[in-house]
């Protein structure tokens, strides 16, 4: 497919890999923020092509993984109601709540449906005026325009049997939380290309300055990621800390203005709890007062739920780049994609699931994550 295949070209990837080897003299730790990038890195073995001095650690950028336990419990409580049609992206269904997951609700007779887009949920609400349709609105800035549009359309069309259960998270506050932690060892970031497609990248400039870290807005294909790494390493080697844009074919400095305008109309910034990390100030989106009637937490009275996370799972440390999945004692033993303890094992984009899928065999003795020598084509 155009704009995909050429960015998987082995020759281009090799040239970029050589260039990274040529310029690297120091030891650098880079974090890719987005789970989609983590998936590509592990799948294509990009980390194994890099010089010893360049380490990639995986960031918190999987919205499925960071959705807090109590929100899953709220979803389960709402989905179990007989009048409700509960619509969600497929990967939320297996995320374990305190006691069960949404699949179990479905198996027990709950009307839980997988949809491709929140706009499909609005259509379902229109077609089923005697039912309550709830959409599980998770995601980063990338997904916020679609969810904002769903609520906005419902209001325009006078649909009252539609609401969303919101667990929206924002990337810049998470980056700031990582950088301000005393345990931090990340020296540069690959920022998530599609998040910046919506929001632009001016928000990252004060972060790059304050914490003296290069931030390179990066795409999702192997050539994109390698070029993003190259640009980060080049800045680190030259002692620069700027915001640069590798993914200019999709990202404009100001982002997508019509999408941002709609987000600002429907959502406001709220504190949000991240699974495994805890509450981060101003790190999420919630509905504005004007759209409060579309808030499923209010409609179904579940706002007060709380839940404790299982102790054994170190997903919180994995999400912050402090530990790698293989360092978790439960990895691939007690915790597998069939029986996940933490959300990072559930979602395809979660670091634990990516390692399980592509690296399990090489994580043998010493449980080291690198297999080495893997080629591209």
């Amino acid at each position: 497919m155009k704009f995909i295949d050429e960015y998987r070209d082995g020759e281009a990837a090799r040239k970029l890999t050589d260039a990274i080897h040529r310029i690297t003299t120091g030891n650098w730790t880079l974090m890719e923020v987005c789970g989609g990038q983590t998936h590509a890195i592990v799948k294509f073995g990009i980390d194994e092509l890099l010089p010893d001095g360049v380490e990639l650690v995986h960031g918190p950028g999987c919205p499925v993984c960071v959705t807090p336990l109590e929100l899953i419990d709220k979803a389960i409580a709402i989905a179990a109601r007989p009048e409700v049609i509960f619509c969600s992206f497929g990967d939320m269904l297996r995320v374990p709540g305190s006691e069960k997951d949404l699949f179990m609700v479905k198996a027990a007779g709950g009307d839980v449906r997988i949809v491709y887009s929140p706009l499909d949920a609005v259509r379902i609400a229109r077609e089923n005026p005697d039912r309550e349709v709830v959409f599980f609105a998770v995601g980063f800035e990338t997904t916020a325009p679609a969810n904002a549009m769903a609520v906005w359309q419902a209001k325009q069309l006078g649909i009252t049997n539609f609401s969303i259960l919101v667990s929206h998270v924002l990337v810049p506050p998470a980056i700031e939380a990582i950088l301000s932690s005393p345990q931090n060892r990340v020296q540069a970031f690959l920022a998530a290309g599609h998040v910046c497609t919506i929001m632009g990248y001016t928000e990252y400039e004060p972060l790059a300055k304050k914490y003296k870290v290069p931030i390179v807005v990066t795409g999702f294909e192997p050539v994109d990621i390698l070029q993003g790494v190259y640009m980060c390493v080049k800045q680190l080697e030259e002692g620069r800390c700027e915001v640069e844009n590798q993914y200019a074919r999709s990202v404009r400095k100001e982002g997508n203005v019509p999408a941002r305008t709609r987000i600002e109309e429907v959502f406001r910034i709220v504190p949000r709890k991240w699974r495994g990390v805890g509450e981060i100030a101003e790190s999420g989106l919630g509905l504005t007062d004007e759209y409060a009637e579309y808030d499923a937490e209010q409609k179904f009275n579940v706002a007060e739920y709380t839940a404790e996370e299982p102790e054994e799972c170190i997903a919180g440390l994995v999400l912050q780049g402090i530990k790698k999945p293989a360092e978790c004692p439960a990895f691939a033993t007690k915790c597998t994609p069939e029986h996940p303890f933490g959300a990072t094992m559930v979602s395809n984009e979660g670091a634990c699931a990516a390692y399980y899928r592509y690296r399990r065999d090489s994580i043998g003795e010493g449980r080291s994550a690198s297999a080495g020598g893997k080629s591209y084509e």
Partner: protein
Amino acid sequence: MCLAVPGRIETIEGVDPLLKMGKVNFGGIRKNVSLSYVPEAVIGDYVMVHVGVAISVVDEEEANRVFHYLKEMDELQELGDTLQ
């Protein structure tokens, strides 16, 4: 979750810019996509689509930049090799 896939716009429907939809072709698979957030898009443009919503028009010139850059790097390298 943040996956967005490039596809080519084949038709545009709806006069109201806020409810603008279109058919987008993803390597042979066609889907109805909201085009409300890309008012500048025309038929034939490639758009990045995330959960049924187009979020940007792909800039072809920028898309080729990395390959131009790699070519330049090659030429420099060759020049370096000949000079040595």
